[in-house]
């Protein structure tokens, strides 16, 4: 295996991993704070990609403006879904999971009816390539990698240092105690849904020029996110980052050396992690 080939596979893995990180971080945030497996998260990602497609290809909006707009639109949608559908089932374990599944089916199904099953594509923003040790890396992918890293750093800093971020962590640790300290649980949840959905929207917008856009993206994405967050530790953002990168590298190297059968590895990792370390590689006991 030559160095350039290795770098190629490595960068592919990094790229794929950051894709998973982008989608899984918002999903994990919701579970960590609201104790909800938000199956609709993948559909928000799908809608983010479609929003970018419509804005760029049909309305001629600048790509970066479309990225911001998609984040805002999807964040607003997330808040609406929370207010009308998730909040009534907030403290009920199983019903909240089922309502999230229902919303995912509804959005995915409507997406199929409205947009049709044909693949759409968003024209690339950057077209050049960079050569590193003989490996060819597209600029487009480098931009996505940098943006993903930027978003993750911003999210981590926000949760760690901002007042509202600290409120989120307080609610995640002990909802009643946080409420007694005067933290509005409901407004914290609303904010958490907005941030998580904005991240899904950003993921959709960032990945739209790289992959095809179609209404089936959502379910596929949320299942990947589920795998990632279980490996990393449900509810942990560092866990989602580590789990996403790990899955990205496993799949990239697996596809190169093992072929198609690689898609099974993620699920086997989930089973092994849940059997031996149910809190995930980076979760707390």
């Amino acid at each position, binding site marked *: 295996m030559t160095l350039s080939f290795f770098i190629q596979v490595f960068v592919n893995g990094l790229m794929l991993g950051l894709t998973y990180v982008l989608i899984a971080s918002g999903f994990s945030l919701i579970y960590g704070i609201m104790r909800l*497996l938000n199956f609709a998260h993948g559909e928000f990602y799908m809608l983010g990609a479609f929003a970018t497609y419509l804005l760029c290809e049909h309305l001629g909006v600048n790509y970066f403006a479309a990225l911001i707009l998609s984040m805002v639109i999807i964040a607003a949608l997330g808040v609406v879904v929370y207010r009308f*559908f998730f909040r*009534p*089932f907030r403290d009920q*374990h*199983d*019903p909240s*999971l*089922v*309502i999230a*599944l*229902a*919303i995912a*089916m*509804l959005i*995915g*199904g*409507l997406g*199929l*009816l409205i947009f049709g099953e044909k693949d759409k594509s968003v024209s690339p923003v950057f077209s050049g390539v960079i050569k590193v040790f003989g490996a060819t890396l597209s600029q487009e992918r480098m931009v996505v990698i940098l943006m993903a890293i930027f978003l993750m750093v911003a999210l981590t800093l926000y949760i760690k240092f901002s007042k509202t971020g600290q409120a989120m962590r307080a609610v995640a640790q002990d909802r009643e105690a946080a409420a007694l300290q005067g933290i509005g649980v409901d407004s914290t949840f609303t904010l958490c849904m907005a941030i998580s959905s904005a991240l899904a929207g950003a993921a959709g917008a960032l990945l739209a020029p790289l992959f095809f856009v179609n209404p089936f993206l959502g*379910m596929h994405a949320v*299942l990947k996110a*589920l*795998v990632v967050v*279980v490996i990393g530790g*449900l509810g942990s953002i560092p866990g989602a980052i580590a789990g996403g990168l790990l899955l990205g590298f496993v799949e990239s190297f697996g596809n190169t050396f093992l072929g*198609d*059968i690689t*898609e*099974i590895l993620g*699920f*086997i990792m*989930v*089973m092994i992690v*849940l*059997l031996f370390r*149910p809190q995930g590689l980076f979760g707390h006991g």
Partner: protein
Amino acid sequence: MGKRGLTYLTPMVALVAVPAFTQDPYLLNLLITTGIWSTSVWGVRVIMSTGQLTLGHAAYMAVGAYASTLLTMKVGLSFWLAFPLAGLISSFIALLIGYPTLRIKGVYFSIITFAFAEIIRLIIVHWPSLLGGFGGIANIPAPSSIFSISFTSRIPFYYLILGISLLTYLVMVRVDKSRIGKIFSSIHESDTLAESIGINIMKYKVTAFCLGCFFAGLSGSFYAHYFNFTSPEFFTIWQSIYCLIFAIVGGAGSVWGPPLGSLFMTLVPELLRVAREYEPVIYAIILILIMFLLPGGLITLPDRLRGKQKKVH
């Protein structure tokens, strides 16, 4: 026979008499499909009765379908032997999976059932030489003639699935009324409390899981031999989600919930005469309406109409 006996007997007589009134293959096919779903969804309900949500029921239908396909086509067994074996094999796989995983509480069980279901589906996809791969396996034989009844039209299939459903129903009623059923619901109410009074909750959770997957296996086996075809496309995460929501729409609190949910969810898209693409949207809307307006499922509708607010867990 009292009033209670009549309420149970009337639907039974009506179902037995259906082919005397109509032999329309389309209608019989709908009823057979309902029967296939019901058998599997009863399995979801018994697992739910211990407070576990499975997101991988389709995997056990797949195990049943492929086990009985291989047993009849490669081993040469008769359907009548392969069919119960398919249930037992599904149940055995559930035991292997359930034993280590059911100690993990809450949402993790749902995730692990889902992950395992995807593993099963991907094994089928990636093992074309034995399991037919993406294309599936065609020409699965229909059940061989028994008591000089040959399975050449839909009517014998109708009676067969009716018999299977009746058997499943009787088992479910028996479980509900027995000590085991009481223990299941005590675990559902509070597993810590159940454990504190000396109930081996692991044993009962595994029992419920194996029992539920047994019926998924039977349902899968019938499916394969009825359609003469099986493919991994039938056993995706969607199939598992449908099993779960059919149970919830019908009402997981009652033994009549699964067949009611299966019948309703099979009939609605047909009655609306819409294309298959609309199915997820329709199912999602029904599910959302049920969750907001009738959390106990359709089975609680008569009580609700009579104004009795029965509390359903």
